[in-house]
């Protein structure tokens, strides 16, 4: 049955993705929920929660707030918090509750900006999609709201979009930026100023599909070229993959990470698969989007080797080939190197 998960836990949802992008930018972020979604984000999907402080809150909605659509109460709570906590902007992240009651985010944004006097961005996540959709919407909203001015280009400066723990398993940017001379990861070890000054970048590197739309937007607005890379494949995965020879290999990850690993493997017939968005423009002929557990079970036997998060192995208990663990935080919640 489609959408029935019998072997794995749900993958990181869109609201977690949105929060992951916004986490370090110095805003006051409100998850528009009753409490459980914020608990999932802070208690599971955001490994930085106990390392780096962030003004990330739950709206604490109750049934009558939802039934009566009491947006004014949410805005009042938000305004009160801006008086207590310093924040350069506010952000409202959606969950299933506002999705059910069809919350008008445009109105919320206007109300919040009027009441607080600082910019507000809204991310219309619903909790039903996967994290990359939430990240995509958050990046786009951020650049549209804050990257307004064309700045002088700084020679050699590289901007990286997609650097979140959910994509990389990393909570710090050092491993991602080490191969570049002057690089900034938007939203990881950098703040809102880097978003505002994005047009200083000579080039954008997109390390996850969640950054593609933002990169296209920046290309159109500021003429910044972008390319794809995933500079943080774990060493042990690379070593195991490089020695494969003449094998039929399936790599399961977010598409850009999977593509990057494919590029490092020689002499094999390699396909990539992803549970997340698959961009046809960067896909090869046999690449696959996995929509449910059965999809993976159906194709596994076509391969000698599968490289993917160990969590997915449970779906294919009778797979006789080699399975190489390539952790993906958005699947198993494991960090880089774990």
């Amino acid at each position, binding site marked *: 049955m489609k959408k029935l998960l019998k072997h794995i836990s749900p993958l990181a949802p869109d609201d977690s993705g949105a929060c992951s992008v916004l986490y370090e930018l110095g805003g006051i972020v409100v998850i528009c929920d009753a409490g459980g979604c914020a608990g999932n984000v802070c208690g*599971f999907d955001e490994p930085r929660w106990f390392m780096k402080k962030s003004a990330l809150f739950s709206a604490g909605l109750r049934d009558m707030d939802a039934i009566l659509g009491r947006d004014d109460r949410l805005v009042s709570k938000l305004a009160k918090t801006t008086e207590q906590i310093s924040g350069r902007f506010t952000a409202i992240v959606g*969950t299933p509750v506002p999705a059910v009651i069809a919350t008008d985010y445009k109105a919320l944004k206007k109300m919040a900006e009027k009441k607080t006097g600082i910019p507000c961005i809204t991310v219309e996540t619903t909790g039903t999609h996967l994290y990359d959709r939430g990240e995509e919407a958050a990046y786009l909203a951020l650049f549209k709201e804050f990257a307004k001015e064309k700045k002088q280009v700084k020679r050699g400066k590289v901007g990286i979009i997609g650097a979140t723990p959910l994509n990389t398993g990393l909570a710090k940017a050092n491993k991602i930026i080490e191969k570049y001379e002057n690089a900034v990861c938007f939203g990881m070890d950098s703040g809102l100023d880097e978003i505002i000054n994005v047009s200083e970048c000579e080039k954008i590197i997109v390390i996850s599909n969640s950054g593609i739309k933002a990169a296209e937007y920046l290309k159109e607005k500021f003429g910044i070229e972008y390319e794809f890379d995933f500079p943080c494949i774990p060493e042990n995965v690379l070593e195991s993959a490089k020695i494969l020879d003449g094998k039929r290999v399936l790599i399961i990850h977010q598409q850009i990470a999977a593509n990057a690993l494919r590029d490092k493997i020689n002499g094999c017939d390699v396909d990539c698969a992803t549970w997340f968005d698959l961009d046809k423009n960067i896909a090869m002929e046999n690449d696959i989007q996995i929509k449910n557990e059965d999809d993976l079970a159906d194709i596994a036997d076509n391969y000698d080797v599968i490289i993917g998060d160990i969590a997915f192995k449970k779906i294919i208990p009778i797979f006789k080939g080699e399975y190489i663990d390539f952790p993906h935080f958005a699947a198993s919640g494991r960090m880089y190197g774990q």
Partner: protein
Amino acid sequence: MSEAFYITVGELAAQGADNIPEELVSSKHLIYSSPATLDFNSPGAKGFGVKRAGLAIPGSVMLLVAPACCGRNTALLNELGYSERFFYLLLDDTDIVTGRHLTKIPKAVKELCGELDYTPSAVMICITCVDALLGTDMERVCRKCEEAAGVPTVPAYMYALTREKRLPPMAAVRKSVYSLLKPQKRISNECNILGHFAPLFDDCELYDILKSAGIKKVRELSRCKTFEEYEELSRANFNIIINSEARYAAQDMEKKLGIPSIELARLYRLDKIQNQYRLLGRAIGAETDDTKYYGETLKVIEDFKTKHGSLTFAIGECVNADSFELALAMTEYGHRVSEIYGTAGERNFVFIKKLAEVSPETRIFSNLSPTMLNYERKTKIDAVIGVDALYYHSDIKGIEFNDEIQPFGYRGVKLLFERLDRALEERL
């Protein structure tokens, strides 16, 4: 940027239960995800939330019917051995608006039961805020599931939206897990302890006291290894409620199974524990003798004071105690409590009023207040109790005192001081 909000116990007691400041009322502000909030707000992530509690029936499995975001953190429970018992029917945008997923649930339950290599004793259907808003009649859906799969199916409501209502999620799930019990002949010398999803410490004196009162068998849901053992819970002559969240389940058991109940509170003041046991004896028509336990515990408390002197504590709410009652106990034992991180309400205002008489300057902070992001220690603290208190004061010695196995009665008090002693010993 304002400082973390606090009010002193004296000020709060003077204002009264009807005038609790907005910063201490969770519905009046955004919610900060402190460690205590995560316990509270993240069912399934820590301890026993609705998801894990719903699997208290031996041999049961759970189908979580929800958007992906509601089940995400269940991965944490895999480490505790639950991975083979959780399944998910994910909802999409159309489902959450139209409720069309309801027709898929019986099919999913049937498929699930068909693929397991055993027949589960029950399928718990866990639903979330979406179905709360849709007004889903889950009892009806469960009946359809039973028809389709031939397995008892029970709803578990993880309705975070209704947390402060008459039947909050953790009370509702307690009712759910006892709902499969069938009436049978009750045995006069058997009883149940209701309240938690893990048992009391094996050496808790409550077992001995009940035994000395003629009770031959004391059952707890968490000690039931098989469904047959679970079914024996309905033989009890009476239930002892040790957590008020089990009150509704007990009322339901009285209605359906004819089992009456007695409620005991978890307390840390010796004289109150003694009094409570006296009342328990009276209620079950037996004399209880707790002199030995009282004496032993008093000695532990006094030895601790002699060894460490009078200490100043910070007490959190992520702890196996009511923070205000525990603060009152520590104060009565000759210590000071400078800060409490807790949720003040009608339920514990009686302790706040008493605490105001002996320690009016104690500061009360709310773990849920956004201002806690700015929290900085401003008072003298020698030791801390509680996961949240340890989070705020990671440089100070202390204990979490938040085990799954439950402390209770004199044993609980002894355990508290024994652990504090061990934690502080390093400093001597």
